[in-house]
């Protein structure tokens, strides 16, 4: 049976079910707007471990274990784990998976990794190659900051367009059978680069990629934006969000009433995070906590989650390259 639809989309024949999710956050995330929607909160950014990277590994391992426990399975029931983070060579993910010892595929989609992991996981299940998979992603503010920008103790001023990398992780268990919201279709994004070079302005750099994927999703599936109760992007922040609404308007579609960005949902104004949250964990903690609970409670029935990632590296921006961006969409329906 043909599951490919249109140019870039997939409609699943047997939609995989998200049977459970789990998330974890750092202290700043706990004090934020979604503080009540975390399974765990760590007390400080080290959590009594000897490095930030180890702390990130711990968080990723913890969310996968918690998500498995929540749906009364054993970790050995997981046929494959799809996961990734922001660090070089997926350091945090690889060390977390060393402890879990399950079949594993590492993903790098920068901040789009959560949506990407669910997209690939869903394909694996619908294809009949697995019965139960886990999709997970993590990021850590300090670990990311020191790799991509400056040492954390350096006294630098951040511009208002800058976003704050979320410390946290999220995991979702996808299963061929069970109860829960289903992944009904997905759109694989392509790289879009409109020439933004400022590594502080990641939200605005990623916005055209999100619009490209959303537009293609609408073309491929024939679903209007109004089909969804809510459309969420991963971590565009307030400036990126404004750009998405504007770019969609230019295409003749008004999404301002049912569109939100996960990066605008995590921190409150007083937390001084500037344009909002970013990082793999931005969409991961929001989807695997708040959004999943809203879906299960029936307050949201149909959502489109668009993971957005900026695929630059410290080397690429030092070489004055612009920022290539990508967005992957998964439709999740009750």
């Amino acid at each position, binding site marked *: 049976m043909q599951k490919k639809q249109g140019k870039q989309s997939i409609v699943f024949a047997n939609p995989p079910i998200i049977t459970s999710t789990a998330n974890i956050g750092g202290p700043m995330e706990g004090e934020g707007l979604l503080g009540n929607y975390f399974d765990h909160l760590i007390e400080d950014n080290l959590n009594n471990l000897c490095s930030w990277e180890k702390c990130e590994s711990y968080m990723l391992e913890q969310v996968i274990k918690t998500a498995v426990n929540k749906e009364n399975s054993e970790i050995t029931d997981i046929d494959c784990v799809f996961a990734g983070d922001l660090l070089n060579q997926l350091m945090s993910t690889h060390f977390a998976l060393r402890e879990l010892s399950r079949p594993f595929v590492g993903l790098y989609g920068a901040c789009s990794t959560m949506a990407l992991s669910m997209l690939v996981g869903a394909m694996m299940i619908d294809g009949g190659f697995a019965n139960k998979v886990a999709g997970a992603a993590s990021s850590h503010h300090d670990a990311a900051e020191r790799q991509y920008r400056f040492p954390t103790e350096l006294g630098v*001023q951040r511009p208002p367009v800058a976003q704050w990398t979320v410390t946290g992780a999220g995991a979702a268990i996808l299963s061929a059978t069970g109860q829960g919201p289903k992944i009904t279709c997905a759109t694989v994004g392509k790289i879009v680069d409109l020439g933004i070079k400022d590594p502080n302005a990641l939200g605005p750099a990623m916005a055209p990629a999100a619009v490209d994927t959303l537009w293609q999703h609408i073309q491929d599936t024939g679903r209007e934006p109004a089909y969804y109760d809510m459309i969420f992007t991963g971590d565009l922040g307030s400036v990126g969000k404004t750009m998405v609404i504007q770019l969609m308007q230019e295409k003749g579609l008004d999404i301002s009433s049912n569109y939100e960005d996960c990066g605008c949902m995590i921190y409150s104004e007083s937390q001084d995070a500037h344009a909002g949250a970013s990082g793999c964990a931005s969409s991961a903690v929001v989807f695997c906590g708040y959004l999943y609970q809203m879906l299960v409670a029936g307050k949201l029935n149909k959502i489109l989650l668009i993971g957005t990632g900026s695929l630059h590296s410290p080397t690429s921006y030092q070489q004055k390259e612009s920022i290539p961006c990508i967005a992957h969409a998964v439709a999740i329906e009750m």
Partner: protein
Amino acid sequence: MPNDINKQQAQQAYAQKLSKVQPKPPLLKNIAWAFVVGGLICVVGQFIMDYFISIGMSKKEAAAPTSAVMVFLGAFFTGLGIYDELGKKAGAGSIVPITGFANSIVAPAMEFKREGYVFGVGAKMFVIAGPVLVYGMVTAFIVGLIYWMRQ
């Protein structure tokens, strides 16, 4: 190459749209903070220098120990995790004085301790301050050369 032109046009159009939406840094507030904090750091420096002069040093002799004390203070407050909070507000006001120079060396040294004393602290200590030193010395050399040739 019509594709390249299209691409360039698309990039320019997007940059234009973005410039209307992108928030500008609060210039006046930033300047005021930089002026006040930078000024206060210099006042502290002046008090320290006056102290060294009061115990019998000449103005020229007092300069070196004053710098040393200010560098120590910059390093100390970086270690306490206060200097980065100050820098977030004060910007250039806390970067330009010599305390900021101490901050730029101590911050990476602290951060990369986990990679060991050779490839961590030793190698990364000057990632921020290194260029300042290199170009500072080059400039000093050129100025010195001009001074020497004029004599």
